[in-house]
């Protein structure tokens, strides 16, 4: 990621071929860096503000909103949030749903992508067209008919109602498909000549090679299904069975003036995701850049 951009201005400055423009270039780059760093810091403000608020007592927040150290810091708000909202069960629900989604996505989408990449079978063209069309379909817009269908299938209120639709994202098929197509074909044919069944080729030759694709698809599916809002809001209507985003949404209200407690809950809501992001930021950013999903 960091290679291409050893861009010319810096190198030009060293060679000194055109000192005047080189100076202008360095100056310009300094200006860019300052500007950008300023904005990046502004972008971090909401996180920091939430964190700081969550550590302060409510009284001093309203009396001295901007003096951060007035009133001292404590973890009281976290205990209150944990005791008063079923955050533990929300976490558990989110973990189970996202975990199942990841496993199913990786299995179903990689199998389908393998078939589409290597095998000729009846309906292959139609299947490919269907998946391609799925990339453009705004399926979030279909929540109402989706709700009617799932109700008649008696899936409402179950984990499956959330797991099944998120486990068959066309974009994941495309990520695997692109990866499989990059495997040298002789490798696959050699395995076939050795007498391996197609299933064995898929499971023991193709899948081990595309571990990076598994990582990309897995992480992105996890984040997308963890953050889903509208569909879980409709499907899970018991407070205890809700996911983290839906549960926390019930705290969003202008009349909720327990700022420290609310911010403590929001910190609990973003910390795990930000932690996952910090650990996998390279894969996540590359995955998003290659797939352009949202």
């Amino acid at each position, binding site marked *: 990621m960091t290679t*291409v951009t*050893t*861009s010319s*201005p*810096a190198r*030009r400055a060293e060679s000194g071929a055109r000192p005047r423009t080189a100076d*202008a270039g360095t100056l*310009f*780059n300094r200006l*860019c*860096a300052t500007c*950008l760093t300023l904005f*990046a*810091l502004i972008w971090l403000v*909401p996180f920091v*503000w939430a964190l700081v*608020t969550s550590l302060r007592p409510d009284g001093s927040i309203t009396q001295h909103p*901007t003096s951060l150290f007035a009133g001292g810091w404590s973890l009281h708000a976290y205990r209150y949030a944990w005791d008063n909202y079923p955050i533990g069960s929300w976490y558990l629900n989110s973990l189970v749903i996202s975990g199942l989604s990841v496993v199913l996505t990786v299995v*179903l989408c990689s*199998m*389908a992508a393998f078939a589409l990449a290597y*095998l000729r*079978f*009846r309906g292959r*063209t139609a299947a*490919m067209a*269907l998946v*391609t069309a*799925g990339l453009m379909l*705004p399926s979030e*817009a*279909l*929540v*109402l008919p*989706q*709700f*009617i*269908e799932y*109700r008649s299938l008696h899936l409402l209120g179950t984990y499956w109602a959330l797991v*099944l639709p998120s486990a*068959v994202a*066309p974009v994941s098929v495309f990520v695997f498909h*692109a990866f499989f197509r990059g495997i040298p074909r002789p490798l696959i044919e050699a395995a076939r000549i050795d007498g391996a069944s*197609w*299933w064995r080729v*898929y499971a023991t030759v193709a899948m081990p090679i595309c571990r990076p694709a598994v990582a990309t698809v897995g992480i992105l599916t996890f984040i997308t299904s963890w*953050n889903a*809002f509208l569909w879980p809001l409709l499907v899970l209507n018991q407070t205890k069975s809700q996911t983290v*985003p839906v549960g*926390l*949404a019930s705290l969003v209200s*202008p009349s909720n003036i327990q700022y420290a407690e609310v*911010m403590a*809950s929001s910190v609990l809501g973003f910390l795990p995701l930000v932690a996952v992001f910090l650990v996998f*930021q390279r894969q*996540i950013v*590359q995955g*998003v850049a*290659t797939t*352009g999903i949202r």
Partner: protein
Amino acid sequence: MTTVASTRPVPAPARPAAADRRPSASEGRAGLLLSGPFLLVYVVFVIGPLLVGAVVSFFNTTTVKNGLGAWVGLSNYTRVCGDPLFWQAMWHSVLFTLFTTPPLVLLALLFAVLAARIRRARVFYRIAFFAPYVVPSSVVALIFLWMYTPQVGLVPKVFDAVGLPVPDFIGSTSGGWTAVTLMTLWWTFGFNFVLYTAAIQDVPGDVYEAAALDGATPWQQIRFITIPLLARTTSLVVILQIVASLKVFDQIYLLLSGGPNQSTRPVIEYIYDTGFTSYRGGYGAAATLIYFAVIVAISAAWYGLRRWRASRAAA
């Protein structure tokens, strides 16, 4: 890193290498068995709702009990089209798109171009700008609602400090739009930033070397090399942004509940209200399909235009 261009919706399925070879029976069977599970779930649970919606929109189905209800023909459609509230909601979604698309595209382009000129602190910028994108919408709404709180919130304080009039962020329509736009900008900016950054890294460095030797100033390099070479990416970012903005629900629902007086209610919330407050499933399905058709038409027009341009460039 693969290019952003590879995200184009349709890389036409290339033929398997040995196209003339007849597929064996075992190959056909393996193909069906491997793709079958995915296709089954996909058709039933993802394509299914579209078909269900198409059918239900001709009946007066309710969302509270099973069964289709009575056949009503096209009357759901005519009533949706005649409902000023539906068109107001459509307009609010369009308005949101008009508010968010220009800053989200232009700022992302600007920042990505600037970031490409700096060698240090890359990871820092990436983390700062992209981290909000992985946070759930309700958490973002919680944080921003607190920051918008009158008198004690951070944003009114900042507006005050720089001498701007402080709008009523939650209680007024114009303040509400400001609040939602700023929050969306913070939340989703990183996505476009990442797409642009990836595209800029695919521009070969020697183009800049050559330009620099010819005495091009940094501004000229950006203006005449980077931005023209990013035209394809810009077109992709713009369409993704338009479609995503037209699908807005979370931010407006959470922060403003579509208020005050439904003056910011987007079309998905309109559908949500018809379906889940007044339980009119058939009617809501008709509204869904009209809205769905609009989004698909926009994506298809963009895609067609892109194909047409590409074929003209090739000819």
